[in-house]
């Protein structure tokens, strides 16, 4: 198929960026979207043009490294997939495709389509853990039964891949879905209880420091989330936050 690609090119964090147009032909429908970009880059190299920089690694939808805003949607058309799982059969010959980076104040552009999402790591560091040393000498794994329903919900929350689609798609650039997923995972498990109050207060505080916006319940994040993380997690986080704010000893 023949396509027209409009791609955001930006030499560096401080440089001025612009959309550039690249016609491309010979794209096959079995190619993944990133393979189409590989294919473009091979052609650019042949022409002596610097290839387009984009983040990617596992290419099976789990590492969370790939991003891209494609035709105005985080990870492009299709639900519950990352960009690397998007295939060219979703497009047709003659299409014009707009490819931009994830945009948010807290995700500064590094180069072209690559952004800095280290703010997410800093939110995790503020409390996304259970304070247990790695000695292996804890209690037996089956000593505390966990109701299956809670374990399953904790798992669903824990499947967040930290890609940032929720932030990119939110009109407020809010990271509430991301933060609430980790907070919920621990909030639903007995092991997470001792630090629950501190955790929610610290992680939300860090989220605000990083410059993410607030949540206005549009639900766009849930729609675009490649792992289908539920809005219910935000509700749980808000409840936990309120409870912690009123009852914390600090």
């Amino acid at each position: 198929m023949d396509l027209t690609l409009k791609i955001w090119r930006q030499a560096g964090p401080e440089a001025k960026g612009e959309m550039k147009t690249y016609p491309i032909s010979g794209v096959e429908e079995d190619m993944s979207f990133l393979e189409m970009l590989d294919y473009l880059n091979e052609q650019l190299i042949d022409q002596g043009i610097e290839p387009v920089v984009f983040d990617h690694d596992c290419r099976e939808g789990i590492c969370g490294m790939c991003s891209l805003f494609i035709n105005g949607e985080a990870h492009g058309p299709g639900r519950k997939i990352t960009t690397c799982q998007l295939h060219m059969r979703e497009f047709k010959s003659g299409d014009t495709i707009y490819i931009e980076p994830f945009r948010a104040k807290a995700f500064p552009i590094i180069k072209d389509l690559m952004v800095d999402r280290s703010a997410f790591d800093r939110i995790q560091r503020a409390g996304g853990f259970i304070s247990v040393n790695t000695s292996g000498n804890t209690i037996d794994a089956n000593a505390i039964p966990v109701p299956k329903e809670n374990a399953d919900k904790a798992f669903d929350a824990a499947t967040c891949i930290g890609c940032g689609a929720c932030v990119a798609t939110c009109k407020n650039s809010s990271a509430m879905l991301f933060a609430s997923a980790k907070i919920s995972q621990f909030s639903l498990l007995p092991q997470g209880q001792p630090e629950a109050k501190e955790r929610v207060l610290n992680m939300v505080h860090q989220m605000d420091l990083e410059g993410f916006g607030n949540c206005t319940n549009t639900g766009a994040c849930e729609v675009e989330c490649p792992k289908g993380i539920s809005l219910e997690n935000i509700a749980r986080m808000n409840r936990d936050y309120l409870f912690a704010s009123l009852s914390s000893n600090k």
Partner: protein
Amino acid sequence: MALDSKIPAGPLGEKWTKHKGEIPLVSPANKRLIDVIVVGTGLAGSSAAASLAEMGYNVKAFCFQDSPRRAHSIAAQGGINAAKNYQNDGDSVYRLFYDTIKGGDYRSREANVHRLAEVSRNIIDQCVAQGVPFARDYGGLLDNRSFGGVQVSRTFYAKGQTGQQLLLGAYSALNRQIAKGRVKMYARHEMQELVIVDGKARGIIAKNLVTGEFERHSAHAVLLCTGGYGNVFFLSTNAMGSNVTAAWKAHRKGAYMANPCFTQIHPTCIPVSGENQSKLTLMSESLRNDGRIWVPAKKEDAEAIRAGKLHPNDIAEENRDYYLERRYPAFGNLVPRDVASRAAKERCDAGYGVNKTGEAVYLDFAAAIMRYGAEEAHVKGVNNPSDAEIKALGEKVVEAKYGNLFQMYEKITASNPYKEPMKIYPAVHYTMGGLWVDYNLMTTIPGCFALGEANFSDHGANRLGASALMQGLADGYFVAPYTVGEFLSKDIRTGKISTDSPEFEAAEQAVRERTEKFINNNGTKSVDHFHKRLGKIMWNEVGMARNEKGLKQAIADIQALREEFYADVRVLGSANGMNPELDKAGRVADLIELGELMAKDALERNESCGGHFREEYQSEEGEALRDDKNFAFVSAWEFTGVPAEAKLHKEELTFENVELKTRSYK
């Protein structure tokens, strides 16, 4: 240099406890004076960095991804083994040890494997305490499933995302230490060179991938937790960035490379679809619990399917060849990976393949869906359920077990595995070979350690499913943090290692020169062009089946490719600032050298064992013929300038507890 594996004396089951008790301790005050570098933040790296920091060492951790959470351990699907015997099916530490030795085709060290089996139980306890959400049954206790090569149910899992959950657990432990300032994290940094001072590993040259700057980092010990080298085949289940550079730089500086030809070709991957494909996707081995593998029994049916004239669902039961169940009745679809892969290749080579390229077999869930559906109907008290009702109920059960895998498959292939069988074919997945390490996980360079997939130690010639996660976490949480003490206890008076020494200067200079060379090369072909050609040579001659003639040809071809690469590779842009093509060029240069050594190692090993199948050494039925008399050793290669001229050192393997037998799964 003679290889000393430093296996402790004493009975097998007491070696580790005894050794652990005898390793010199470093006092908390002295630990604060000692720096440790950890390269890589997968299961082994994250867990080691977190544990060492907890103990009091100053840790610097490096990863090339934008966050430590993205290391490729995250993509492991199926599960993690542990000898918990929660299912009461007769499992034990000894049985896990025995299965692993046997599964590895008797090419691993008894002492290391037993230690792995011992600490496997602690891993599960630890992970649950960290909040890893493993699958549970209705009673709230942990659930298990079976994997290939074993007859017990000892695999703990979190749907098809076990690697993700375990890595996020280790990442959380790492974050806790980063937050305390105990670990300094360098993301988007890649190790370019190992620095050796007075014969000891004392630091690395790292590249900041965002700014392009080279940085000197010193430490008293360097831990390489940098994963495997499957990307030497270009197409593999590895991540795009996975590479051998850190391990290869260490090899060039004196670390021996062990059993590099032991590559795991995983039987259940989505088949190759076209020339522009960049990677292959695994379908977890756990699917073989419920999926039945088959090809048409009649060649004309296979031909009709390839031509698009026949649908697999229309082939009658008696015209299907469930070749694993036929050849290996005792283990059936759950034979180890190497056996399953070769059996698929055998059928496809014989003309029974079922996709356009003729390189695919079916993995069919229809029987499992009906079986589970009937069970569910019974549980729910549905009287005389129709086939459609049973099917609907069964699909729900299968979805709960493998939903995300089925979804992944459908996204890639646009085919619905609930309605028609999956098509699968073997693909490169894991490398059992790696840096040679002693019982303390130290390489032949003092102070340089290798953990997880980067070392060679536990899986012999074939790794069993759900054992990679076990080994990565065992090395990182429970082995290396203790065994480094033996080396580091001598460094309490050394003081900070200076980065101004001539050794650091020379190492940085060498890296700069390599980089400049690529940028100024003015070649005509892209890095990927060469990488793809390397991959083709490796897959054709050093892949699932190897022979003397092909291996010799591969060595010659790779040498020619290497020369052409240096003469003609084209890297645009500059060395200052971000330049992913430049980073890729460095990685591919090292993969080309490694490929040559792999072919050399495969050529020297005149036997078939595990993932290494030499066509000259097979039985009349096509089963692998191992040669314990002449090849029960670890090949450890010393770099001498050209990979094909590497010097072989042998570590003889002695089996005191296990009797060497022909591996039979019949």
